[in-house]
């Protein structure tokens, strides 16, 4: 009696600990982070070197690596490590920056465990030269290995958990088959644990963009543990321990069953701690859907090997009984699986066009094809081969076994596709980064200082056609300057175009703007803004304005 209570308490603890860990560690709804704003803006031409670079993302991120390259291409040592403050990454720069193009190359990780990398250019004393940026080489070998290990991790974890579920629900206690299955299942738990650990290292390698050789060092492991993959791994290992305990106790008490079930639920929750699917908006919907989906997948694929063993070793009557029991439960599991999977697909893909248009959509399509094959096989097993067991006996058993092996192979393919989806950004985040890019219309901004008066001149969209010229000017002490008159003159000397002169109207304190300035041709325009500070004083700001196509 006491052992029973202790057993139930233990199971309850495991059941509660896993979701508690996930919920406590996971704040509000997250998705793939995108860079929303950079100060100084990308491509800015500055007269004086900035004191810091501030990068604002649409959600909290943590920095993985930040490098600043000087005009000669060498890396500049930063006076202090970059700080992330709720979505804004601040990079302090050393005081004496040389004139020329500087590149700030950053790599941060967002909540769904994905690295976001990019670079921001600015020029001190000269317009920045875009040729200075070298594209970060995609470590294809690392990405491929990470996807494969992730697939193995999913498969082994879910098979180990599902095997436990098979023991608990299909076979019931005191079944002799259980004893035969146990060694194999324990081995499965061991392999799953190894895969969990390896996945952490590879996740760290992908985050750092490091080659596979970096797995020998400590930094990729530290990065992996620090990311959401680390949290997921901790929950997974906890669940595997529960499954192992359950396997050991199974025949002696109900606690064994509870541990097995608890372990399976924990494994499902481990996979909600990280990844795209579980971090899709709204999180209260996506996380439970992933948990349900994963749990039903675990039951299904975890049953393959035990079913094969049963069909091989048990007398036909016993196999028939077990398989009928399995079929009943499996139908329910498949229904939950399809329902949850459909919900998740809608959340991630939103637009049906994305299925063909994006890489994520194409991988999803591949997965769906395999899933349909799997469902067809399962249906065939359930409605044709299982009843045939009673009629033709060992022959049917052999055919069923063959079908189960085929299912195993197709399921492995499904897992590979799923791992591929996990390493590809889903369309909803791509839409966001596109929207982000559209929200900030292309334009040209430059920061100038004339006689100690700082000014920011912005021309949008800096393309042939109507443009808006905006000027923000301040006094020497930083307060907005209210000028008597502000006029701008835009000229394209190379094309011999008459300078276009416009008066800017005050639109705010120290802010002057004019719309509808027609720039007829692209090229290297020059802008001159005259700010009449007083009757006798005029501040002249001159800058180049590259007008693109």
């Amino acid at each position: 009696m006491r052992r029973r209570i202790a057993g139930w308490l233990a199971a309850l603890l495991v059941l509660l600990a896993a979701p508690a860990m996930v919920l406590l560690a996971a704040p509000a709804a997250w998705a793939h982070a995108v860079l929303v704003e950079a100060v100084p803006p990308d491509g800015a031409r500055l007269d004086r070197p900035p004191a810091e670079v501030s990068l604002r993302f649409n959600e909290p991120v943590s920095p993985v690596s930040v490098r600043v390259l000087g005009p000669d291409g060498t890396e500049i040592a930063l006076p202090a490590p970059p700080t992330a403050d709720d979505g804004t990454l601040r990079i302090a720069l050393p005081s004496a920056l040389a004139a020329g193009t500087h590149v700030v190359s950053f790599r941060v990780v967002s909540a769904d465990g994905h690295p976001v990398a990019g670079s921001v250019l600015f020029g001190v004393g000269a317009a920045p030269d875009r040729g200075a940026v070298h594209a970060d080489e995609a470590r294809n070998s690392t990405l491929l290995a990470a996807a494969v290990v992730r697939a193995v991790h999913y498969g082994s974890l879910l098979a180990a958990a599902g095997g436990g579920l098979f023991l608990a629900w299909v076979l019931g206690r005191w079944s002799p088959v259980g004893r035969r299955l146990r060694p194999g299942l324990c081995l499965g738990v061991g392999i799953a644990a190894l895969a969990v650990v390896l996945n952490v290292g590879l996740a760290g390698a992908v985050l750092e963009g490091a080659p596979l050789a970096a797995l020998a060092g400590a930094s990729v492991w530290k990065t992996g543990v620090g990311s959401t993959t680390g949290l997921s791994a901790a929950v997974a290992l906890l669940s595997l321990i529960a499954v192992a305990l359950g396997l050991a106790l199974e025949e002696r008490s109900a606690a064994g069953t509870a541990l097995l079930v608890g372990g399976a639920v924990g494994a499902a929750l481990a996979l909600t701690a990280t990844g795209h699917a579980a971090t899709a908006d709204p999180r209260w919907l996506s996380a439970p859907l992933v948990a349900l989906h994963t749990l039903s997948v675990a039951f299904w694929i975890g049953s393959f090997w035990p079913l094969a063993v049963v069909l091989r070793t048990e007398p036909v009557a016993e196999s028939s009984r077990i398989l009928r029991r399995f079929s009943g439960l499996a139908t329910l599991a498949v229904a939950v699986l399809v329902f949850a999977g459909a919900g998740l697909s809608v959340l991630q893909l939103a637009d049906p066009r994305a299925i063909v248009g994006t890489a994520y959509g194409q991988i999803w399509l591949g997965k769906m094809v395999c899933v349909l094959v799997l469902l067809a096989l399962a249906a065939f097993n359930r409605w044709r081969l299982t009843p045939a067991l009673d009629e033709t006996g060992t022959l049917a058993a052999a055919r069923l076994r063959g079908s189960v092996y085929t299912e195993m192979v197709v399921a492995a393919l499904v897992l590979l596709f799923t791992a591929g989806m996990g390493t590809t950004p889903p369309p909803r985040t791509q839409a966001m980064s596109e929207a982000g890019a559209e929200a900030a219309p292309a334009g040209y901004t430059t920061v100038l200082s004339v006689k100690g008066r700082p000014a920011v001149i912005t021309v949008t969209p800096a393309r042939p056609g109507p443009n808006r010229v905006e000027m923000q000017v301040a006094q020497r002490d930083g307060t907005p300057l209210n000028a008597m008159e502000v006029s701008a003159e835009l000229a394209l000397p190379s094309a011999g175009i008459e300078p276009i002169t416009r008066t800017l109207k005050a639109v705010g304190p120290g802010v002057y703007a004019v719309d509808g300035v027609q720039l007829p041709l692209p090229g290297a325009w020059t802008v001159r803004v005259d700010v009449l500070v007083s009757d006798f004083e005029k501040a002249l700001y001159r800058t180049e304005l590259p007008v693109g196509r």
Partner: protein
Amino acid sequence: MIREIRGALVAAAVLACLPSASALAHTTLEVKQAPAGSLYKAVLRVGHGCEGTATTTLRVQIPEGVIAVKPMPKAGWTLTTKEGQYAQAYDYYDEKLTKGVTEITWTGGNLADAHYDEFVFRAKLPDAKPGTVVYFPVVQECEKGVHRWIEIPEPGKTDHDYKEPAPGVTLTAKP
């Protein structure tokens, strides 16, 4: 065809020969060089009005360092001056000057665009390094429009780089 080309070439040559009309329209000082620390007679030459209309007011701002300013009255124009504190005390013969004229205004007159006139004042130039340029910002108000000759060239640039440069005098070495 050749006749057209020839005509175009002649027109281009004629246009090229025309002196830059903008330079003539600038309000400039007659004497552009003077020894540092000397008593200087500043003659502002006004060759044009604004957009073809007559000049009605001329205002000159005296920069820091130029002291003991005395403007010359002009028939038909009302002469007023504005006094202000100097940033520091300057030695002027046996006196120490702490304040003086900081702005001169000739107003009420009518100088047609077709006519030329000069506006004169006397001042003691600062004792600065030879090569320093002392700029006098001038605001020329007309019947229609204003010309502000107040652009001070940045170091490394000359008057020719600007559309409305302030009249300036370059200091030379003391004799």
